[in-house]
């Protein structure tokens, strides 16, 4: 680990951190990006682990989608994440690609960011100067842009483990392998009402995961059709879609409303 940090400091922007390579090698093959050096962090034992404490799940930087999909702790504590991981890209990308690499690349049409933001997950970064922790929503700053400094590397993703009665949903619409849009929702529902405000995050529509302002929905009756429509409207208003190969802006805005209602339905049904 110390070697990786010192190599990162020595080479700065001349080196890329290399783990699964599923995005990095593609970019290099296409000639989009060029690095004289790759720092392979896969041999570092401590980065390979998934560890849970009573209230925190810590996912090492080289843990793959494949491993998360099969991890018993993830399946039990964060079933929505396990299911999301089982549906990232395709089996070969899942076998090689890592969750940390997915975040580091900050491709807007990626699955994990929306749910991680909704869960309040953090990215743990390390450099020669020490370590710091950023919320995933702070770490991803734009399309293919992150707050990762030239001397830093991701060492882990930390996810606060939700209380037992917290429900979570992740629904997406995709044409090919990447989501055209995704909705992550995390909430506690008791006696048919939200306990506090639900967390609703729209992924793959804007350049960064977009949290929907939901303060007005604290204690809202979840089965009231007006709640569903108002939540859909709040989500449509929160995003700023653009026309691209995944659809026109109007189409995507419409689908955001539809998928927010589906996510709400999934929360009500108690599906994880």
């Amino acid at each position, binding site marked *: 680990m110390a070697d990786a940090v010192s190599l990162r400091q020595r080479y700065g922007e001349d080196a890329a951190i290399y783990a699964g390579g599923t995005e990095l090698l593609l970019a290099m093959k296409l000639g989009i990006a060029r690095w004289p050096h790759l720092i392979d962090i896969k041999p570092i034992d401590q980065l390979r682990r998934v560890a849970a404490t009573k209230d925190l799940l810590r996912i090492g930087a080289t843990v793959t989608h494949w491993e998360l999909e099969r991890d018993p702790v993830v399946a039990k504590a964060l079933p929505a994440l396990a299911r999301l991981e089982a549906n990232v*890209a395709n*089996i070969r990308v899942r076998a090689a690609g890592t969750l940390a690499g997915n975040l580091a690349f900050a491709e807007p049409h990626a699955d994990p960011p929306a749910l991680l933001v909704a869960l309040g997950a953090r990215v743990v970064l390390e450099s020669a100067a020490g370590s710091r922790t950023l919320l995933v929503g702070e770490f991803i700053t734009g399309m293919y842009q992150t707050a990762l400094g030239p001397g830093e590397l991701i060492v882990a993703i930390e996810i606060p483990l939700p209380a037992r009665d917290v429900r979570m949903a992740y629904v997406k619409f995709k044409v090919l392998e990447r989501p055209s849009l995704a909705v992550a929702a995390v909430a506690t529902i008791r006696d048919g009402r939200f306990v506090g405000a639900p967390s609703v995050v729209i992924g793959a529509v804007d350049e960064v995961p977009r949290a929907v302002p939901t303060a007005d929905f604290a204690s809202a009756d979840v089965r009231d059709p007006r709640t569903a429509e108002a939540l859909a409207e709040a989500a449509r208003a929160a995003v700023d879609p653009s026309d691209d190969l995944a659809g026109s802006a109007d189409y995507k805005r419409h689908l955001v409303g539809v998928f927010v209602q589906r996510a709400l339905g999934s929360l009500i049904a108690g599906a994880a």
Partner: protein
Amino acid sequence: MARREIGLRLNGSNRRIEVEDQVLLIDLVRSLGLVGTKLSCDTQVCGACTVLLDGRPVSSCTTLAIEADGRAVETIEGLADAGAPGRAPKLHPLQQAFIDRFAFQCGYCTPGMIMAAKALLDERPHPDAAAIQHWMEGNICRCTGYQTIVEAVLDAADRSRRLP
């Protein structure tokens, strides 16, 4: 570019090979005459280049050859038993099932399909059709319409069940 010697178990045989750092696994195996592994999309989308690295399916077009150091690589050529001298090799149950079920036409995607299916059956010997479809949705075939491929994998799983 640096060159280094790597040691790998390739289709069951230990090999030591010198490779340059930037060489891709697909180019390494094809340079060794194992040309069953096909390049197609070159972007990890189509699955034609699927090989198994320590049993897991990977896109050999986007995997560095040096990743194979100290690990096992399986390609389509490693599946059939050589058989007795002078006799035809005995095909793997997946290979025989793909033939019997007409699960290929041009055949270009087939090695990748079979390697992906092998990884599935190694982990889950008796998957249902839905599990096969989910596992193999990243393997693209432009000829068959997929149905015969799913049937072939089901068939191969069934044949394995009947083996002693």
